[in-house]
């Protein structure tokens, strides 16, 4: 078969299957365009945020329903006990001067 006939065949094949016709075998970087995007698969590795108890609380509080979060209640109770023992968190320093004077005390 003639060379030109084979080239025509390849050209038609490329047109039908929407491939890149490149008989000179130039490096046109089309392999990059053929690659699939990996981003969505990589971004889905860690579990996304789902509905939390706080979300339920936020939706049902305005409707006048009462909610009780046992873990949150325990935490607040523990903080109260710690405060009574003098083990609470230190007061937040709002200004630069306050934070400097706090350092000097030591």
């Amino acid at each position, binding site marked *: 078969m003639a060379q030109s006939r084979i080239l025509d065949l390849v050209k038609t094949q490329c047109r039908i299957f929407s491939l890149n016709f490149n008989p000179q075998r130039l490096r046109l970087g089309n392999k*990059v365009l053929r*690659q699939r995007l990996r981003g969505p698969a990589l971004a889905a590795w860690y579990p996304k945020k789902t509905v939390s108890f706080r979300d339920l609380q936020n939706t049902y509080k305005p409707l006048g329903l009462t909610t009780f979060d046992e873990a949150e209640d325990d935490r607040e109770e523990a903080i109260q006990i710690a405060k009574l023992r003098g083990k609470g968190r230190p007061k937040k320093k709002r200004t630069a001067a306050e934070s400097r004077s706090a350092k000097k005390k030591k």
Partner: protein
Amino acid sequence: MTKMAGLFRPKKLDLSGFTNTRLIRDHNKRMAFEQTEPERQALRYMIRNTSLPGRVRAQAQLQLSQMHAYTRPTQIKNRCVESGTARSVFRDFRINRYQFRMQALAGELPGVKKASW
């Protein structure tokens, strides 16, 4: 010019389950890569296309190399979803070997059975 990683830090964390700083950082890198992947691929195409003028290709190379490190896919490391460990993480289960052992022995992984012969 310094490029801050804080650009890629979301205002609110959109993860549930175990989190630590390194896991969140890796998640941020994944998000950054997902956002910039089309741009990176376009630049990669320009660099590899020998029919484009050399100047354009060199510019594309420069632009790609100057993108933030967080947008690079090689920065992404698979970490354990349960403990945040970066070593010996099974890709199929997304947990590391110790967590895998504990969960498999507890029967929490369907189809996983301790071998014995």
